[in-house]
């Protein structure tokens, strides 16, 4: 058994981190309590204002999963079309990749030996 683990990297002392998290939480809560007390639910104060356009009902306001990070995927369109091409879902292709990798691996190992 070796003497290693986390003493060599004294970045990670979990108890300290947990304590730090608790302290941060307390500070956040304290900050929150300093907020304005005159805020009232259910009045015009909490209504959504969308430049005068009629606000859609609640169910339609939800951003769907495929729309999250839309810009990211739009920017990387070329990359993703390359990445998607091998993922054909055909079982023959899976075995073809296997044959290819084994052929290359054996070639490397045999030539290296």
């Amino acid at each position: 058994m070796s003497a290693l683990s986390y003493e060599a990297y004294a970045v990670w002392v979990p108890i300290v981190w947990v304590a730090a998290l608790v302290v941060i939480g307390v500070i956040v809560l304290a900050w929150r309590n300093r907020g304005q007390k005159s805020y009232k639910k259910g009045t015009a104060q909490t209504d959504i204002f969308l430049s005068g356009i009629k606000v859609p009902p609640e169910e339609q306001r939800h951003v769907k999963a495929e729309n999250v990070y839309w810009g990211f995927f739009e920017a990387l369109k070329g990359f993703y079309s390359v990445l998607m091409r091998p993922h054909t879902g055909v079982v023959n292709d899976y075995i073809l990749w296997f044959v290819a990798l084994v052929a290359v691996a054996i070639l490397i190992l045999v030539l290296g030996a």
Partner: protein
Amino acid sequence: MDYLVTHSPALIVALPLLAAFAIPLISRLGPRVRAVLCLAVLGLVAALVAILAVDVHAVGIRLYTFGATAPEMALPGGYMVPVRIMFEVDGMSIFMGIVITTVAVASLIYSLQFLNGQTGQARFYSLMMLLYVGMMGLAFTGDMFNMFVFLEIASIAGTGLAAYRTNMADAVEGGFKYIVISAVSALMVLLAIGILYAQYNVLSIAALAHYMQYTTLDMMALGLLAGAFVMKLAGVPLHMWAPDTYTVAPAGTTPMILAASYTSMYALYRITFTLYGGHIDTAAIGWIVIIVGVLSMFVGVMMAVHQTDIKRMMAYHAISQGGYMLLGVGVGLAVIADPVALANYGRDAMNGGIFHIINHVFYKAMLFMTAEAIFFRVGTRDTNKMGGLARNMKWTAIFYAIGALAISGIPPFNGFASKLLIYQTVLSFNPVLSVIAMFVSLVTLASFAKVFYSAFTGPEMPGYKEVREVPKSMLIGMGILAACIILFGIFPGLIVDTIVAPATEALINQAPYINAVMGAAP
């Protein structure tokens, strides 16, 4: 007690096998009896694994020869070649045993209420036990052909479970893909075993390592074995079956199939380190492992961000996290011939890679369980259709959040503990790799945040107002794993010292493994 310690390697495999054979008969007495039997057997086996772990960590390698006059008698009297099958349990084997047993217990508890009212339960539990037997046998065995047999048991049982929902076209398709790639890779393993047997006329791993001449044919066998096991552990570019199969497998079994693929990773390590250890060009092999690892990390995570199917996204993350393990152990393998680098960072890199196995299996198993809990109540895996589920499924949302933070490497959860080891050590080896690893972690967090945002938060969707929390047994199954995640995150040093370091030591130092069998031979 002495009896238990001596015979525990055999009993750990044989008792669940006995239960698997008995379950179709026992279930005639009712589902309650069957559940009690399953839990009792797995509990007993878990106790045996604990006993064996203590023994292995105290004494060293535990040898069990089947059918000999004494368990330690590997070589027949005055003879230099082992003729019988033996189990050799060292630090790495027992580490895998602990991982598999914990996941199996959690999955079984989770399945108890998940399956209520469905047909074919008796055979389902039987196959679950058989899958457990296959994985444990693969982790414990010291014989090449026996490894092949247990690999097949695990594959066939996994296929039966993955295709459980036969009325769904995708489930059957995922099962078929799994059995095809398992059959082909297992037969390639058998071909490699045949090539090795042709030259040395032995089948025991220790004896093969003892007699190994490192000829061209041996290298060919190494290529076949490595290709087959990389296929089974879903490393890029042989990963494409994994999302298909993980996605369709029913709840309790996805973690088990996941654990089965990491058992194949164990087999890969066993072969590269123990069977071929020491003499091959370790730097080259190590770099191959590192490249496969980095590719897995990158491609897996980039594919995962794109997914909208919740289980498919998690499956791609499983591939990506597998890359971290390969990266850590690959760095160790690349510098194994250099004692200074090994002491400086190689050993810790391997610790990180191996520690990541147990961490990843735990949180990914829990994440799969939460995904299946959503499927259980909502009836879909498509995240586009979900929304506001946290209002009614509070515990599931909490467990999902714990798992998501753990997989992204946020302190104080266990994912951070192992990822920190990997980042630090890989930084000393090659800074670029470390940066890639951190970037992958970032994208991981982004993709899990996306699913958390679109599935759990937001307004209640009209169809899901009546959704309730999942039954208790499912929550208990997830809770066990969540407790492990938090504990491992808070006491990482303890875990690394007690179970991970012996595993690393067992991999780096192959001599004890060989001497346990071939000690008497010249």
